[in-house]
């Protein structure tokens, strides 16, 4: 788990997690990127604020929860903070397991939980120069809510 202003490289992160490992059959990565539009508005840039200390403990918590739910060989969360522009990477989740279903499910779980639990806040700067805090999406709460039920299918 890392919180950083610097960009990340997906290939390098996979290589670091899987180097010398022949017990990993499946690696899933999710990369969240900044789009040039959101909710129908053009966006010129973004600032990501977070709560140092709590962010790290929440990310560690969701990673531990994923490790407890699925048989993961490795996992990683990297989240950027600070000033970002369209096309920039925002967040990376990597999961590694023996089989693909655990890796897919854990990656989705990490993203859903991260989105509703980790203390990050996005402030977007519109094409007109006006800045506005991004509203939380109810669909993110729903996505996180589905993990409260037992998973329909694992393996």
């Amino acid at each position: 788990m890392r919180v950083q202003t610097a960009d990340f490289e997906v290939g390098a992160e996979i290589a670091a997690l899987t180097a010398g490992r022949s017990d990993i059959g499946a690696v899933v990565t999710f990369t969240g990127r900044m789009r040039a539009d959101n909710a129908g508005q053009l966006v010129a840039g973004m600032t990501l604020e977070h709560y140092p200390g709590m962010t790290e403990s929440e990310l560690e918590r969701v990673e531990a929860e994923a490790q407890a739910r699925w048989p993961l060989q490795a996992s990683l969360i990297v989240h950027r903070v600070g000033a970002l522009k369209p096309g920039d990477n925002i967040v990376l989740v990597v999961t590694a397991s023996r089989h693909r279903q655990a890796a897919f499910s854990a990656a989705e779980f990490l993203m859903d939980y991260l989105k509703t639990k980790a203390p990050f806040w996005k402030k977007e700067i519109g094409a007109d120069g006006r800045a506005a805090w991004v509203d939380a999406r109810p669909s993110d709460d729903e996505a996180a809510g589905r993990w409260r039920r037992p998973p329909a299918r694992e393996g």
Partner: protein
Amino acid sequence: MRVKLLYFAWVREKTGKAEEHVDLPAGIKTVAELIAWLQQQGPEYAEAFRRSEVIRAAIDRTHAPPGASIAGASEIAFFPPVTGG
């Protein structure tokens, strides 16, 4: 009780400060009671905590619902719903 308060995102912008140390009067036992008290600490606080139903809190870096006890807390944070990822 002396406690460190932290504000993030638009709560920070509206209170005009990122953090402060405050001496809480006796009788404030929960997050909700602390928000009600903060609403009375001046117009900037009244505005910041006006939509109290959308304000989230964390006690010592752990998410806390409105009814959570603040007894023994050293750091209490207030912020809007999170929007990371």
